[in-house]
């Protein structure tokens, strides 16, 4: 039978401009093609100069996620035991009523602090991302969730040194003469920056990567410097030692735009290259050359990755790295300085999204890394937790202390609400499960923490099933709780978009909601990248306006930037901070704890995966095929000593737990260092556990950053153990 003559209605096809929502610095401008209401293609926008028409391995197959048969499309109530994943469908009204009833009862019986939100950056739109639940929970008086997953320690350290400045425009890096990539696998986690680095290299720049692992990025660089995990601060301090003692400083710049130079000179004397070589495992000659080339090839730039903070001295490491550019006058020229989070260039109207004034003063704060302890009575809490509401996050995979977290989430007296797109490890423990939209089904407006463009996400398809955006979820909950007496809780998405930025700020000049909707993106109104040198004449965003080698903000003690804690400034960690940068060695190492290091001689680091973003996409088949099952990279020498071969099952363990993984014997990781990428779900793991079993809950020195890279383990073949 042929259908050739049958008249076919022309398909109604349209293209919609969107924005990638993932927790990634690149915030790609997307173009979604929609035919008869169904999205048929998601591609990169060719018009956006920085993201330049490409997406990445995570999002190029976004439709596999949007239309995945496992999407949660209706509200559900748990019917089986906690964790069983057995649910029955209910209506939205029933779900919202039950949540409101339980929250109200728990608040009445135990105080509202018995309820806690758990969330992070499953989506990072200004509307639906980091702060979407903050006004609701602040008004409720729930326990404040401190979310220090990403760069919190780095932000504290960076702000203490140079203030909340955008730093370097990544597009200006084509002008850089020396590019120092520190603890970042650009090709996997910041892909759209790479062409700028490659262009600089073509123009003669030297590109150096400091990383314990010979990543793809390290292989493509001019030089790879392998470093022992957690000793980055020793290298940075020794670089300052060499630069200062060899007279490679930019004296005019130092005199005009820094404070505390004399104290710094004195401080760095103890950090000789010989000492740093012992600490880091890097030859003295390599340290000397690095310091000299970094200082003299101007403009030089340091690109730091999130990993740089993930050990006991992570904060002070970023303090030292943020001091370096001023020392050598790197800020004088476009493409010189340090690139941390250019997010600070965006005049986001954070208060309108957090509404910290609603928070009852003194409300208790719990860091999400301590959730396992908090749920199992091991944290000294004024009000023990009786309810959780999880959105934008899968804490069972992304937080440490997995065994306790499972124990806590299994508590019968804990009421857990989860809003999700998929049945994640955490969603299995929900009492009430709510369906969340993907980016194609919602409207949002995006900052970026990797470039200087605002991006708009126009919705391209109707929500699937009964899924709702997070904004609508909290509107519904607020109404059910009676919060709709305050217009904050009845704002439409459109009204929120109108509040997203300080549109009167110079950076937003010429940019409107309408222009964004139409063009999809807009570069902030800043000088063109070839002229962008914001600290040529100082103007640092510190109290002194200078780079503060001696930090005045240190006097207030250790703190977490309030953005990461619902706007709250109560119960800050507060411990005293030495105002000069210094070296804090890893906590878990042979010098600090020889007995521990004897039992667990191998470092474990857990970088971001290539094909997943944190735990997102780890359930999508094509991503699983690219990423492969959870694997432990181990150096040939360490493997041989333990009789481990590629493809065999091994057990990685320490006092906190044990994980079964496939081994890959691989010289790309240093001797003594094992590597397991983060993100695989517990439900897919060999022994129902992932590496977050092994990670410590201890914070780094600043900003309550995690210390994932400060983990010692040993590894053994599984067969031998059972044999």
């Amino acid at each position: 039978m042929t259908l050739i003559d049958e008249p076919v209605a022309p398909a109604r096809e349209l293209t919609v401009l969107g924005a990638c929502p993932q927790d990634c610095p690149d915030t790609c401008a997307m173009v979604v093609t929609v035919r008869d209401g169904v999205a048929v293609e998601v591609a990169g926008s060719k018009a956006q100069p920085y993201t330049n028409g490409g997406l990445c391995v995570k999002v190029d197959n976004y439709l596999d996620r949007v239309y995945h048969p496992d999407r949660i499309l209706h509200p559900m109530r748990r019917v089986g035991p906690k964790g069983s994943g057995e649910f029955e469908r209910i209506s939205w009204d029933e779900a919202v009523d039950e949540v409101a009833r339980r929250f109200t009862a728990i608040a009445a019986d135990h105080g509202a602090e018995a309820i806690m939100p758990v969330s992070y950056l499953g989506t990072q739109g200004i509307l639906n991302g980091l702060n979407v639940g903050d006004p609701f929970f602040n008004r409720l008086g729930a326990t404040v969730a401190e979310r220090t997953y990403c760069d919190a320690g780095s932000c504290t350290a960076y702000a203490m040194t140079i203030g909340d400045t955008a730093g370097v425009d990544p597009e200006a890096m084509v002008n850089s003469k020396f590019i120092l990539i520190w603890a970042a696998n650009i090709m996997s986690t910041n892909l759209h920056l790479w062409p700028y680095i490659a262009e600089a290299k073509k123009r003669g720049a030297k590109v150096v990567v400091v990383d314990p692992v010979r990543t793809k990025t390290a292989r493509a660089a001019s030089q790879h410097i392998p470093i022992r995990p957690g000793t980055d601060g020793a290298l940075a301090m020794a670089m300052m030692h060499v630069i200062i003692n060899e007279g490679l400083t930019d004296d005019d710049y130092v005199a005009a735009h820094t404070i505390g130079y004399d104290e710094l000179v004195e401080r760095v004397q103890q950090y000789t290259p010989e000492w740093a070589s012992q600490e880091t495992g890097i030859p003295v000659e390599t340290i000397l050359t690095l310091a000299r080339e970094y200082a003299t090839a101007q403009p030089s730039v340091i690109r730091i990755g999130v990993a740089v903070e993930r050990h006991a001295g992570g904060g002070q490491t970023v303090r030292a790295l943020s001091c370096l550019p001023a020392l050598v006058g790197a800020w004088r020229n476009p493409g010189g300085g340090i690139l941390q989070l250019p997010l600070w260039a965006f005049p986001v109207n954070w208060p309108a999204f957090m509404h910290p004034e609603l928070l009852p003063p003194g409300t208790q704060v719990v860091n999400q890394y301590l959730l396992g302890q908090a749920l199992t009575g091991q944290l000294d809490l004024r009000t023990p937790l009786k309810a959780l509401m999880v959105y934008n996050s899968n804490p069972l995979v992304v937080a440490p202390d997995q065994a306790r977290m499972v124990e806590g989430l299994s508590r019968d007296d804990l009421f857990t609400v989860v809003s999700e797109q998929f049945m994640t490890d955490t969603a299995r423990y929900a009492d009430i499960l709510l369906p969340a939209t993907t980016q194609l089904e919602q409207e949002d407006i995006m900052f970026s923490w990797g470039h200087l463009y605002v991006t708009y996400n126009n919705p391209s398809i109707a929500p699937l099933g009964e899924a709702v955006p997070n904004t609508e979820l909290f509107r519904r909950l607020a109404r059910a709780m009676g919060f709709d007496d305050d217009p904050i809780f009845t704002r439409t998405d459109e009204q929120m978009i109108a509040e997203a930025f300080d549109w009167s700020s110079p950076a937003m000049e010429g940019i409107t909601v309408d222009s964004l909707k139409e063009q999809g993106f807009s570069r902030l109104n800043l000088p063109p990248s070839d002229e962008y040198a914001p600290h040529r004449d100082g103007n640092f965003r510190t109290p002194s306006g200078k780079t503060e080698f001696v930090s005045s903000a240190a006097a207030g003690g250790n703190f977490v930037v309030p953005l990461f804690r619902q706007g709250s400034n109560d119960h800050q960690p507060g411990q005293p901070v030495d105002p000069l940068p210094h070296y804090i060695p890893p906590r878990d190492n042979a010098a600090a704890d020889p007995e521990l290091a004897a039992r667990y001689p191998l470092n474990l680091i857990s970088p971001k995966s290539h094909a997943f973003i944190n735990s997102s996409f780890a359930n999508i088949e094509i991503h699983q095929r690219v990423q492969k099952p959870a694997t432990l990279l181990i150096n040939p020498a360490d493997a041989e000593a333990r009789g481990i071969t590629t493809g065999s099952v091994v057990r990685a363990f320490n006092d906190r737990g044990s994980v079964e993984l496939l081994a890959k014997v691989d010289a790309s990781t240093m001797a003594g260092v094992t590597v397991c990428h983060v993100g695989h779900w517990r439900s897919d793991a060999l022994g129902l556990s992932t590496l977050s079993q092994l990670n410590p809950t201890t914070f780094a020195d600043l900003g309550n950053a995690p210390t994932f890279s400060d983990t010692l383990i040993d590894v053994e073949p599984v067969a031998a153990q059972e044999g």
Partner: protein
Amino acid sequence: MAYVITEACIDAADKACREECPVDCIYEGDRMLYIHPDECVDCGKCVTACPNGAISSEYKLAAEDERFRDIAVEFFDAFPDANGGAEDLGPVGADHPTVAAWETGGRT
């Protein structure tokens, strides 16, 4: 893990894909181009750049194109200098034997 160039590139080889690759891992043989399996970061950008629909994820290859996965691996085994950036290297000047001997006229 990588994207793979297949038969439709043979004797087309217009290099449109190479311009688009963010990591410069598409190397020029004689009759076709080859994606370095260890350097490709699976971003998919080359797929839409190819006017001939020659490029696919190795996990989405049509059955008749499956052999091009091995062809790529063997090509880079045979020419170990082809790494670290296709633009700097320029044309390799040779092909995988299967491609060199390929009869034009399309697939059977």
